[in-house]
């Protein structure tokens, strides 16, 4: 049986990817609220996903306040779809 992508097979990273599959982009605050995670942990996991090429992270300013905006890449979308397909085979769906 095919292995589940270890990068996605973790609670917080999978939650982030699931959100970004349904929206075009989301900022750090939104992701933190929806995943109910701490800023430090979320930041680390976002970096891991970004390093793998699954996420695109842009830093911008909203007025005087910095804003981190995340969006899923084509590679990330493909990885997520593969992950869900593999899950289906595990669960015989």
């Amino acid at each position, binding site marked *: 049986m095919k292995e*589940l992508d270890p990068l996605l097979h973790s609670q917080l990273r*999978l939650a982030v990817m699931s959100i970004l599959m*349904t929206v075009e982009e989301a900022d750090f605050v939104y992701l933190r609220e929806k*995943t109910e*995670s701490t800023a430090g942990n979320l930041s680390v996991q976002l970096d891991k996903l970004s390093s793998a090429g699954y996420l695109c992270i842009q830093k911008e300013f909203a*007025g005087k306040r910095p804003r981190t905006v995340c969006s899923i890449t084509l590679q990330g979308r493909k990885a997520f779809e593969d992950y869900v397909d593999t899950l289906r085979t595990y669960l015989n769906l």
Partner: protein
Amino acid sequence: MENKELTPQESLTLIARMIEASKQRVAMPDLRISVMWAVLSIVTAAVVLTVSLIRYTPWINLVWFAIPVIGIPLNIMLSPKTGIQTGTKTFLDTVCDGIWKTVGFIAIFLTIICGIFQITGYPQAWLAMLYYAFIIVGFAAAMTGIVLRENSYVVGGVFSILAGFTVIALQLCNIPLLVVWVIPLYMFCFLIMFIVPAFMIRRKFNDRKR
């Protein structure tokens, strides 16, 4: 939420939960900008109608410029807040933004074209702005309704398009377009294209929240 490993069943549950959580945002579009333009258009039309009925002068038509002069700065003021407040941008936001930006650019270029006609001695060209308001804005409202799956926008938009073509047909038949009914029709179209749908969406959203 922590960084623990999941069982396949937990993964699937988590994916479903996160998709549901982000859908809540999709269900409530920001209505302030469309309502602002509608209110501005209706109030401006009401001023033009009132003054025209009391004592008509061609200069009163300059009041129509209040729509872009007040509307564009207000639009700029409201726009950045929209994205920052919600923290997310969906495909629906991108489509709706694209539709209304196109409508805005058409308005700007049409104003320039009408201005050129005015300079060359054809002030009646400004009637094109009326057709724009009925047909182009109506079409955009209908498209927004289709994208957001909100039928009230579609009904309002289609009504406005039909009103626009009726006005064109009447003009082609040399039937005079009187301020006394054209402007109220214009106001009514903006009311059912934007204010009524906004009211209905807000009510649906509040019901769902309850």
